[in-house]
């Protein structure tokens, strides 16, 4: 690639993993720790080459557990940090995703989903990790998960993921799939100065008064980093505003865990993003995310051509779940069609939001994702 | 190693022709033995063709006489009845050899140490005993055979024990001659007494200034390995081939120490410095004095707070930039192979606190001459200012009291310590130098200013106004208020009483043998005189040699001396050791085993008991091989052999039996037959003689090299021939000169006791005594104890014993 040390700008033909990596750099990520795994490996490979050019750190750890731990460490040491993996590695990372949530460490975890369970189908796409994204680590917590459907979005949403993680102090999950990861497309990258970059809030009190987990009104505490002289303590144990363990106080537990959920759910309106296509007069709406949304779109177009008033609601934010958006649309339509590359995960959230509106679920596993015709078929049946 | 050739009896040309010489040794022997009668008696003994008595047989005329007689009277055996063979056997053997007579055809009867000196007041009994001793010697002589001596190589390395000026000099001389030297010093630094003295007489040189360069030479010399804070723990082997073990006590500080002293500064422990006789303080980590060699500091673990591996205090470790401190250093044992040993262990100073009338230890202003040396020394606690302890003031009037612990049968030692007079004179002048108007009194018995330049110094002192008063004070009293001292006594020149008031009194203490010299004596099988100093092989002719081959003396270990004499003797000792090592080989006495293959049943007992593994068993040919060079010559194998297939040359069964028979021919029932080993009990008996310890004259000593040589049949034969009692004596277990041969002795005696008890014989009649060369008293006491036993033995008991042991009379 030409123009070393310069951020990539302009139009390029890239694959999704590379676009993601470039997005990370563009977002100001300067630390990557990971472990090779198909189909996410290209992200690591690309960053191992690019990170040094920006004075950033690339390290391959001994496993995904360590990678996630290292990412949290780097984050606390003041860097924007990320790791990338796929299902099996994502499972291993859950332990420390929980730690990142508990210690409110801003960072990004990319999961290029493949077929599971277990080792499953490394080279084939899937959407089987979306529930793990929400509930993968033990305990209650709010999380943010984004779902790109194109190489362009792999770039854009990676930047977005960092901005959200810095804003809300938590790990943000980018839930791509094998197809967006390995697909080659044209990507247009705006000039560096036009890319929005958010940095974590810093404390504005003298170090003596600093309490590392004392939230502002937005429920997010300002974050000091190691070496800045604040001498603060952070712990995976339930803790008070000072970060000191409170292992036997239910008050402390309630206060902390509620806030960890609330800072996300309470800010859902600011966080959630969806794409709405031809919804104004729609009788049938297809709700989809990731690569499946692209087949859905063409299915909707075909339906319109065939005189069916179909529309598309594409979920860009998976978590927090775009409940309002689904509910509003559900009121005005006869039915909802939901294709997913799993045995039915996010569809349950859709059903919950859609209330009485019937939801037709179209499940697909393995090599080939949904075709427009398959989705069109369901749309027809739903009329 | 050459194998011993099989033994074929050398046909003796003609009948034995024995010449006997009874020595008067001035009055030493003649004083309590009628030598004339003894020689007359000798003339009547078989094979004796000539017997005479003369005043000093060891004198040149004496020796010439013997040589002449050998030629004129065709003597083929010579017996001298005089002092201990440990003293003069070599002299007479040499004389014989000069006259062409093989030296193994000479025999000695010890009628001085073992007779005249121990029976001073019973001329008749002493004379009778002397006759017996001569008779035994003659009997053995008749059976003596010529022998050739084997040669053993000498290791060209030397061990010097003691790092005082004598040891330093000896080590340097040997190393400069080109021999590897190990210098072992038990203190943390070499330097010894001389390092503690301020000035030397008569030249008044600064002592440490002239010693320090020599000390550092030792430290740097390629040829010298310095082992300080170490003690010799084991000595094995013999002349030319000693194996030494040295215990190296840990210093807890490694060689990396730069002697910067930062460690001592932070050490919380404060203690009196032994080097300054406690007049100055030191810390738990310290260097005894500025010029110490090695300069490496040392931790006194008795004082250090860090015990049993718990490092409570690490102040010194932290202060040490070179990281040289190791609290967990462990003792090590160095193993050395040397050919010669120089003993330079020095002397102690007399402790005057045993003399109540001088108040030392109670009266602050009474100090010893050694303490004075530290006081007047610029490197000492008062930086050379003569202060009196009570009030740290410079004394105006000082008294020196001479002969404290010397030349007194009541208080301390009988002998003169040689150095105290001149040391006091030197000290008095030192005071006059710095504080000319100090009044100085010296109370003396005699002033002995015998050496070169000594008299001049004495004159100078008197000129300088030092008052010499003949007559020691009878007591020293203190004025409680001023702590001044009142000395009262008699001025024996003016024969008038004096009562003199001084500010400070210095006790001129004598020198005495080291507390630990008995240990050195045991390790090296040496002898000491009654004063406890090591005994030289000959006071005139071999003044620096020990009786034990390959060992030499230097400095005060052998007797009190000043620096000059110590250095002289050290160089002499070095030269003597050098001569041995230059030769590179030494002949060993022909006292190795003789095997009779025809009798040997290859049972292997001898192989088992040999302490040197010098015998190998050749099962195939049912025979044994004796490796002569490896043989130590104890004769245990000969004693052990049940078939008489082994004997020890020059101590053959026949020879020993002939001695037994000779003693038991008459009045056996009144006599004790004693077997003494050459190194310990025989030397012990000699010491009893040298010390004039009196004991009953009923004992007859037969010398063997080792008690291990004493076969059961010898004891049995003595009883079978009606002896009242038998004594088997040797070195203490563990101190055996032949490694462990005396354990066999113990086994045999126990067997005999069993046999005696089984046959209703009193076991008291057979005594087993361990006595070292230093234990003359122990030996004498045992003989005294035996008197009643001997007297109580009834004729019936004698007869019974004869029966029980009659088998022993059959000589195979």
């Amino acid at each position: 690639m030409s123009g070393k040390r310069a951020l990539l700008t302009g139009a390029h033909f890239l694959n999704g993993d590379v676009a993601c990596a470039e997005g990370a750099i563009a977002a100001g990520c300067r630390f990557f720790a990971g472990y090779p795994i198909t189909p996410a490996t290209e992200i690591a490979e690309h960053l191992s080459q690019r990170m040094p050019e920006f004075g950033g750190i690339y390290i391959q750890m001994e496993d995904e557990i360590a990678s996630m731990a290292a990412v949290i460490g780097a984050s606390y040491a003041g860097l924007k940090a990320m790791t990338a993996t796929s299902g099996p590695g994502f499972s291993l990372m859950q332990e420390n995703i929980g730690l990142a949530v508990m210690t409110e460490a801003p960072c990004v975890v990319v999961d290029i989903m493949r077929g599971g369970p277990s080792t499953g189908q490394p080279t084939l796409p899937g959407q089987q990790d979306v529930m793990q994204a929400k509930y993968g680590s033990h305990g209650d917590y709010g999380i943010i998960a984004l779902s790109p459907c194109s190489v362009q979005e792999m770039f854009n949403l990676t930047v977005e993921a960092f901005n959200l993680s810095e804003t809300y102090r938590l790990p943000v999950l980018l839930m791509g799939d094998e197809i967006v990861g390995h697909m080659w497309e044209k990507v247009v990258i705006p000039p560096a100065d036009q890319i929005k970059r958010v940095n974590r809030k810093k404390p504005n009190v003298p170090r003596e008064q600093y309490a590392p987990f004392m939230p502002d009104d937005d429920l997010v505490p300002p974050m000091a980093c190691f070496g800045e002289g604040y001498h603060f303590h952070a712990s995976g144990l339930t803790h008070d505003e000072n970060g000191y363990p409170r292992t036997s106080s239910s008050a402390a537990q309630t206060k902390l865990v509620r806030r960890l959920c609330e800072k996300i759910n309470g800010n859902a309106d600011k966080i959630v993003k969806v794409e709405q296509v031809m919804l104004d007069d729609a009788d049938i709406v297809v709700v989809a995310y990731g690569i499946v949304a692209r087949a859905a779109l063409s299915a909707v177009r075909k339906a319109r051509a065939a005189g069916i008033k179909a529309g598309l609601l594409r979920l860009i934010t998976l978590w927090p779940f775009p409940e309002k958006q689904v509910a509003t649309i559900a009121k005005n339509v006869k039915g909802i069609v939901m294709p997913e590359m799993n045995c039915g995960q996010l569809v349950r959230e859709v059903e919950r939001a859609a209330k009485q509106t019937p939801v037709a679920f179209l499940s697909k596993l393995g090599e080939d994702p949904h075709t427009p015709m398959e989705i069109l078929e369901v749309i027809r049946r739903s009329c | 190693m050459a194998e011993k050739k099989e033994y074929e009896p050398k046909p003796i040309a003609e009948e034995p022709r024995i010449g006997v010489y009874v020595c008067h040794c001035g009055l030493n022997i003649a004083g309590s033995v009628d030598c004339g009668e003894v020689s007359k008696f000798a003339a009547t003994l078989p094979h004796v063709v000539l017997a005479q008595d003369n005043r000093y047989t060891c004198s040149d005329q004496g020796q010439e006489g013997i040589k002449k007689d050998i030629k004129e009277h065709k003597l083929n055996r010579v017996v001298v009845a005089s002092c201990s063979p440990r003293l003069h056997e070599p002299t007479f053997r040499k004389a014989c050899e000069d006259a062409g007579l093989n030296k193994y055809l000479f025999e000695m009867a010890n009628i001085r140490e073992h007779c005249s000196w121990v029976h001073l007041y019973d001329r008749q009994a002493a004379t009778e005993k002397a006759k017996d001793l001569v008779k035994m010697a003659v009997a053995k002589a008749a059976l003596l055979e010529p022998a050739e001596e084997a040669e053993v190589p000498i290791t060209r390395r030397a061990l010097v024990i003691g790092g005082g000026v004598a040891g330093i000099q000896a080590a340097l001389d040997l190393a400069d001659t080109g021999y590897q030297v190990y210098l072992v010093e038990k203190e943390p630094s070499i330097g010894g007494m001389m390092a503690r003295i301020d000035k030397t007489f008569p030249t008044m040189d600064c002592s440490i200034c002239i010693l320090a360069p020599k000390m550092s030479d030792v430290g740097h010399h390629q040829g010298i390995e310095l082992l300080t804070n170490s003690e010799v723990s084991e000595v094995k082997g013999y002349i030319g081939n000693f194996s030494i073990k040295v215990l190296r006590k840990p210093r807890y500080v490694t060689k990396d120490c730069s002697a910067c002293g930062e460690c001592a500064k932070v050490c919380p422990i404060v203690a009196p410095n032994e080097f300054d006789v406690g007049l100055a303080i030191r810390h738990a980590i310290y260097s005894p004095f500025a010029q110490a060699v090695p300069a490496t500091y040392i931790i006194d673990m008795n004082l250090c707070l860090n015990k049993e591996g718990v490092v409570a205090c690490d102040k010194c470790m932290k202060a040490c930039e070179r990281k040289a401190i190791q609290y967990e250093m462990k003792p090590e044992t160095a193993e050395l192979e040397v050919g010669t040993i120089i003993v330079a262990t020095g002397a102690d100073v007399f402790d005057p606190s045993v003399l109540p009338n001088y108040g030392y230890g109670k009266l602050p202003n009474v100090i010893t001459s050694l303490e004075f040396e530290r006081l007047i020394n610029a490197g000492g606690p008062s930086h050379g200012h003569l202060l009196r302890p009570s009030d740290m003031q410079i004394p105006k009037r000082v008294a020196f009291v001479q002969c404290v612990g010397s030349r007194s049968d009541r208080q301390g030692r009988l002998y003169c310590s040689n150095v105290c007079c001149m040391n006091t004179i030197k000290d008095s002048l030192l005071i006059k130098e710095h504080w000319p108007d100090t009044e100085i009194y010296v109370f003396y018995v005699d002033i002995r200013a015998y050496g070169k330049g000594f008299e001049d110094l004495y004159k100078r002192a008197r000129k300088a106004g030092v008052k010499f008063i003949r007559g020691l004070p009878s007591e020293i009293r203190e004025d409680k208020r001023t702590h001044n001292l009142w000395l009262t006594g008699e001025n024996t020149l003016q024969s008038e009483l004096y009562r003199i008031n001084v500010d400070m009194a210095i006790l001129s203490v004598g020198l005495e043998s080291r507390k630990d010299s008995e240990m050195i004596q045991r390790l090296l099988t040496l002898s000491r005189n009654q004063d406890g100093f090591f005994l030289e092989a000959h006071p005139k002719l071999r003044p620096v040699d020990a009786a034990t081959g390959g060992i030499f003396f230097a400095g005060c270990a052998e007797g009190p001396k000043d620096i000059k004499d110590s250095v002289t003797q050290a160089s002499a000792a070095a030269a003597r050791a050098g001569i041995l090592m230059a030769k590179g080989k030494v002949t060993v006495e022909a006292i190795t085993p003789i095997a009779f293959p025809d009798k040997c049943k290859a049972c292997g007992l001898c192989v088992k008991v040999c302490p040197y593994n010098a015998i190998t068993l050749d099962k195939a040919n049912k025979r044994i091989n004796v490796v002569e060079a490896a043989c130590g010559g104890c004769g245990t194998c000969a004693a052990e052999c049940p078939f008489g297939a082994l004997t020890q040359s020059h101590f053959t069964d026949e020879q020993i039996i002939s001695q037994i028979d000779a003693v038991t021919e008459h009045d056996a029932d009144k006599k004790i037959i004693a077997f003494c080993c050459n190194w310990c009990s025989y030397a012990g008996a000699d010491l009893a003689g040298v010390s004039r310890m009196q004991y009953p004259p009923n004992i007859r000593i037969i010398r063997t090299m080792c008690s291990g040589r004493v076969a059961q049949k010898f004891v049995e034969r003595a009883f079978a021939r009606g002896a009242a009692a038998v004594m088997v004596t040797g070195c203490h277990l563990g101190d055996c000169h032949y490694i462990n041969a005396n354990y066999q002795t113990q086994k045999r005696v126990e067997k005999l006791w069993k046999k005696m008890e089984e046959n209703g014989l009193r076991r008291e009649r057979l005594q087993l005594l361990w006595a070292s060369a230093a234990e003359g008293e122990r030996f004498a006491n045992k003989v005294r104890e035996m008197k009643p036993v001997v007297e109580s033995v009834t004729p019936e008991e004698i007869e019974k014993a004869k029966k029980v042991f009659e088998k022993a009379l059959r000589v195979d």
Partner: protein
Amino acid sequence: MPERIKHAPLDGKTIRQPKAEIHLIKDQCKGCGYCIEFCPKKVFEESNEINARGVRPPKIIDESKCLLCSFCTAVCPDFAIYVVERKNEEKNKT
């Protein structure tokens, strides 16, 4: 060197032996007894009083024996004891 030492060092006074001031934070003590056991000068013993944690803290037998090695401070798991050099010593004298 075998001479028996009879006189006190003359320069004994020249070196100043620092005096210790031992501080016990009794209520922090958990009573492990390490200070008592390992003090090379045996300055401490168990006291009879019961502290806030219900254990017997050490008490000082003889502070003057302390040589300020501060091992008690170093080995105390509970930061309940420390030793400083007594400053006011000189003033007391004069």
